[in-house]
Every structure is written in C-alpha cells, then in structure tokens.
C-alpha cells in the first residue's frame, strides 16, 4: 500500500492537534461561529477543518495516482491542459437555421473550438413546425429543424470536417444524427471522418429533463441502434452523452447527479453488451455531461469522484481491457439554475466560479452560461462575455499550468471519497431495484430529485441558503438593465411555408417507401440508422419519422410526480 502519510505522522501531530482544539474551544465559547452547521449547496455537511486524519487511508496509486493512469482521479490525459486546452463549446440555437448559422460563424470567428446546437421545443419533442402542438414555440428556445434542408442551412460554410459538433437532442436523436450524416455526405465529407456528439440520453429524460416520446425500453433500443451503428460506421462520434446536467438542474444534489448519471451509463453499457457488441468496441465512445454548480469544492470533488467510480465500474463490472474504455470523458455546463434574473451582471461572476471548478475538475469541454440565460436566449454580447470568460481562465489565470492542482488537499481528497461512497450507495440501491429502467418505473430517481429540489427551496425561503439578489442584498424595484433577445413570432409562418414547399417538391412516393422501411426496422430487429439516412435524404420530415416511432413503440406519458 502506497499511503501518502508515514503512520508516525499521526502520533507526531497528536499534541499540536490537541493544543489547537483547546485554543479553539476557548475562542468558540466567547465568539461562536456564524452558523451552527456549514453545508454545501447540496446540504452536504462541511467540517471546520480537514487534516491528514481525514485521508489517512488514502492510497496514492490506488486512489489518485498519476494523470492518465487508473483510476484517472487526476484526469484522463497525462498532460491535461498543458497538452491541449478543453474544447470551448458554446451551446447556441435560435430562430431559423440561418439565424443560428450566423451565431455559429460569430462564435467560431471569436475563438470557439467546437460547435453545440440548441434545438427548439418542437424539434426536441419530435414535432414539425406545422404541427398544432408546435404553436407558439418555433425557434423560441433553439433552432427549428424539420428537414435535411434546415440541417444544410444550419452548418453552411462551417468546417465540419475539422470541428466537432455536439447536438443536444434526445427522442429524435437518431433522426437528427441521420440528417447530420446525410448533410456531411452531400458536402463530400466521408462519414468515417466526422466527429461530434448527440446527447441521445433518454434515461435522464424520464428522470429529469422530461423531453420524452416513446417508453423507456423502446427508447433504449433505438439508442443501442445508434451505439452499434456508430461503432461500425462513425468511429469519431460519441453516440451518447450520458447527462447529469439536467438531473442537477431539476434540483438533485451533487451526489444524486453523480449516482443517477453513472447508473444511466451502466444501463446503456448493459444494453450494448446484450446486443452483442464488445465492451471495448463502444465504451471508448461513451461520453458524459455534468453540471458545474455554484459550490466550488463540492463540484471539483464530484468530477474527480466521477472518473474514479467509472473507471472501477468499467474495469471490475464490465471487464473492459482497453484503457480508453475506462476513461470518463465529460463536457460541462455551468449551472443555469444558479443564475438570477435579479442583478443579472452578477451571473458573470457565478459562471466564472463554476467554469473554474469544471476546469479544476478536469473537464474535456465546457459551455459557460450567458448572463442573460435566466431571461432569454443569449444576445450576441452576452454570449461573447461567456466565451471570453473561458478564454481568460485558459490564457490569463495560470490554472492550466499544472495538472489537478487541488490533488492531495485534505478537504478535496476527503470530499472526493465522500462523493464516491455516497454515490456508490445509491448505485447499489438502483442495482437492487433491478437497474435504472426498473428504478424509473418505480419513480425512484424522480421522487428523490423532487424531494431535494423542495428541500433547497425551503432552505432558501428560510434564508438558510443565500442567493445574492434573491434573499439577500436585494435591490428594491430593480429595473433589469440588460437587453432581452426576442424571437420574432413571424418565423413560424415562414418555417411552415418552407415545409409545405418541400413537401410538394420532393419525391413523395420515395418518402412513403422510406417511411415503410423505417417502420419495418422498428417492428423487427434491424438497426434503424441506415433506413433513417435514406429517408432524410429524400427530405422526409422529422415528425414523419418520429410518428413511425410513435406508431411502433407507443408514447410515454408523464406520471406527474411532485
């Protein structure tokens, strides 16, 4: 065992520890501390002081080791940011494909190193803009994509052979991916060379984000189709981004975010293995996506624990051999739910702290929220400040000079252990329930998150937790000083006209055949991806294909847990 302390140390410091405690007691009797109990934003208790005693069982090689070495606590790469900075990937999407394309060009020009696409609600839910369910929603919280034509306009002029693209899409992820692949092929780019990520994580939709379409089992089947297809055909693509972000935004604690997300990862891995794919063929392409909330050290501990837990799960539970299968690579987004509409410039400061935590936690890619996130889709100016925040941390702050600078800290190591212990407890509970699908059916994660969200709100209302501008340092009758971006309602009509035009100009006989083929694939065991690519090339719409899914698998309804 490679303990980081000589056991003699504990005897040596016993006296000074006692002396300090006596002194402390005296001080506390005359000057009590500000609070009876100090805790993180997740209400995880934090002690007054951490000492070697708290990490006396820490084994250097087994528990932290060198970066790039199992269990990767200190990072997945031996050089980390000294080799290459994280990918600066700003989530963007607004109005029409042309509007978003303009924003993409601006961000790339200003030094962003990856693309990330936000879709509007109808697209996310698998409806075309002309659906009655889409009234009033076109382009409001992201870009509207109905057909391949929109996808072509969205990436027009962008170097997608050099830059990777992330697409935050879930129920229709397979279809949107098919459109992206078709778009690349039409531009003469070999699909084997394109790189990117589709979120495609349906389990966390049932748990937290709630954009769902088909029931859980069928959803996992389609996801497994994408994993299988990606493994063979699109080797540089991450077919799932296993996401804790939305679990946290829905109100979970840091430990719950960690546990539920990794339990989702276990479920996808099991499904792919059951399909007959070798774990080492697909596991290196599984990627993660976490929240970076406002409690600085808790987040850093969470990221470090995540890597260690996943490496152990892949090695011990799934017997992975390829070192890359053991890597937990992740994207991070700062916490939207921590921002305030009040005094919105304060959000720049919150986002900076959260971005710093993500970087000290070793993220591979990062989105920083804009100061106006709470009010609307970001204006250009707000998005630029958010991007510059990352660039300042990368280029000016010096935190990238050394790897895992907080490694060895009594507090960080002890908290990393705590995160791991408590997350494993929840993961084992989910195992006992029969895995994540069974746990979702029992509403276990949904209820646990609702409980935590309510607990935090009660603490906030009782001033036990503070949000500046909300329950302390309030400005009365404040006027919101920032510009709010409005999406023009008129684009809905234009987008509907565009669909109508495509539907008269395309080969509708071919579209019908393609839809039948996708239906047949759904009904049987054939992987849907090839048929989807053929279908979207004929300008079959997103909803036409989603309707095939709905007919084949049925629709999931929200159980309305609160």
């Amino acid at each position, binding site marked *: 065992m490679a303990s980081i302390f000589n056991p003699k140390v504990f005897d040596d410091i016993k006296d000074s520890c006692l002396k300090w405690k006596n002194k402390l007691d005296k001080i506390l009797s005359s000057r009590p501390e500000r609070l009876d109990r100090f805790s993180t934003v997740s209400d995880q208790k934090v002690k007054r002081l951490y000492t070697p005693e708290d990490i006396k069982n820490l084994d250097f090689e087994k528990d932290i080791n060198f970066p790039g070495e199992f269990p990767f606590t200190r990072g997945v790469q031996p050089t980390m940011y000294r080799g290459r900075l994280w990918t600066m990937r700003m989530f963007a999407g607004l109005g029409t494909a042309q509007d978003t394309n303009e924003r993409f060009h601006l961000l790339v020009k200003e030094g962003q190193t990856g693309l990330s696409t936000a879709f509007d609600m109808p697209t996310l839910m698998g409806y075309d803009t002309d659906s009655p369910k889409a009234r009033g929603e076109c382009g*409001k919280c992201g870009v509207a994509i109905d057909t391949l034509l929109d996808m072509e306009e969205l990436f027009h002029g962008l170097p997608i052979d050099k830059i990777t693209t992330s697409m935050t899409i879930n129920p229709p992820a397979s279809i949107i991916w098919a459109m992206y692949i078709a778009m690349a092929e039409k531009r003469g780019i070999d699909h084997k060379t394109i790189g990117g990520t589709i979120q495609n994580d349906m389990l966390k939709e049932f748990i937290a984000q*709630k954009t769902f379409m088909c029931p859980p089992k069928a959803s996992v089947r389609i996801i497994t189709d994408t994993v299988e297809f990606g493994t063979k055909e699109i080797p540089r693509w991450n077919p799932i981004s296993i996401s804790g972000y939305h679990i946290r935004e829905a109100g979970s604690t840091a430990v719950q975010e960690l546990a539920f997300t990794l339990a989702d990862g276990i479920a996808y891995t099991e499904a792919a293995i059951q399909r007959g794919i070798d774990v080492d063929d697909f596991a290196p392409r599984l990627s993660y996506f976490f929240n970076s909330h406002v409690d600085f050290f808790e987040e850093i501990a969470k990221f470090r624990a995540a890597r260690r837990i996943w490496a152990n799960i892949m090695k011990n539970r799934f017997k992975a051999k390829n070192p890359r299968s053991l890597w937990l690579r992740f994207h991070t987004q700062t916490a939207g739910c921590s921002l305030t509409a009040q005094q919105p410039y304060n959000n720049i400061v919150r986002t900076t702290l959260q971005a710093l935590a993500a970087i000290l936690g070793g993220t591979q890619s990062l989105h920083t929220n804009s100061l106006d996130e709470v009010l*609307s889709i970001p204006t250009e100016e707000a998005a630029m400040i958010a991007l510059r925040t990352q660039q300042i941390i990368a280029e000016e702050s010096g935190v990238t000079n050394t790897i895992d600078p907080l490694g060895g800290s009594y507090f960080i190591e002890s908290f990393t252990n705590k995160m791991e212990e408590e997350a494993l407890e929840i993961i084992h509970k989910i195992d006992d329930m029969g895995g994540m699908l069974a746990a979702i059916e029992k509403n276990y994660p949904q209820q646990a998150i609702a409980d935590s969200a*309510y607990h935090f709100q009660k603490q906030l209302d009782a001033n036990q937790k503070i949000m500046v501008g909300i329950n302390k340092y309030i400005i009365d009758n404040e006027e919101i000083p920032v510009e709010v971006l409005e*999406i023009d309602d008129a684009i809905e009509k234009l987008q509907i006209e565009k669909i109508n035009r495509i539907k008269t100009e395309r080969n509708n006989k071919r579209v019908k055949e393609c839809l039948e083929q996708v239906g047949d694939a759904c009904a049987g065991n054939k992987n849907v991806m090839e048929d989807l690519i053929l279908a979207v090339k004929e300008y079959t719409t997103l909803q036409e294909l989603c309707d095939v899914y709905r007919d084949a698998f049925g629709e999931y309804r929200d159980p309305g847990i609160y």
Partner: protein
Amino acid sequence: MKRKLRLMVAKPGLDGHDRGARIIARAYRDAGYEVVYTGLHQTPEEIVEAAIQEDVDMIGLSSLAGAHKYLFLRVIELLKEKDADDIVVCGGGIIPDEDIMILKQAGVKEIFTPGTTLDEIVKWVEDNIHPRID
C-alpha cells in the same frame, strides 16, 4: 362550512422544465389545499377540460421556454368559450415584463417570476382565491 380550495398546477406546451411547477404543487399541498397536477406536455384544450372536470378554483400555469403568450392566452380564451372564466388563472416562469402586461390585460390575474418565495405564492392564494359558487 367553506369547502377546501382546489388548485390546478398545469404545464402547457412542450416545455419540460417542471422543477418550479412541482415545487409549487407541493407547497400548495403542504398549505392544506387540494392539488391537481396535470403533468407535462398538456395542450390548452386538455388543461381547460381537466380544470372544468376537476372543478378547480384556480389554474396555475408554468412556462419556461418562451411560448407563454400563445399558451396562456389560449387557456383564457377557452375558459371564456366554455363559460368557465370564473376559474382564476395565474402563471409563473420566465416571462418578460412586457409580456406580463399583455397577459394581465388579457385576464391572467397574477404572474410570479423567479425569486418569489413559496410563502408569497401561498399567501396570494389565501388572499385572492375563493371557492367557486356553483
């Protein structure tokens, strides 16, 4: 004896942000009201039909994805059509000031924006919502 108030918390449209709606449903329940939570992805038609069927005294609408103007106004319109506009409508979520004016003029009684405490929201019900007279 005055009957217990029946309050509906509803999520219209495709928006999936239900953290706020669920917290408020629970706060109403803890305050002793009867609560009907619709769950997500309801059309205005479904909400109004359920509100009438469940005989609620108030509908609280939650929206965080920008489609509030269409969705909230459609609920108001449908309540009028069904002669049920004595059901009070309030709302909450990410709603810009200019839109609050428009919504209030159209008959939405109150809009709660981020930062409102649960106590304030419950107190408002206490002061403003009364059992409908059959």
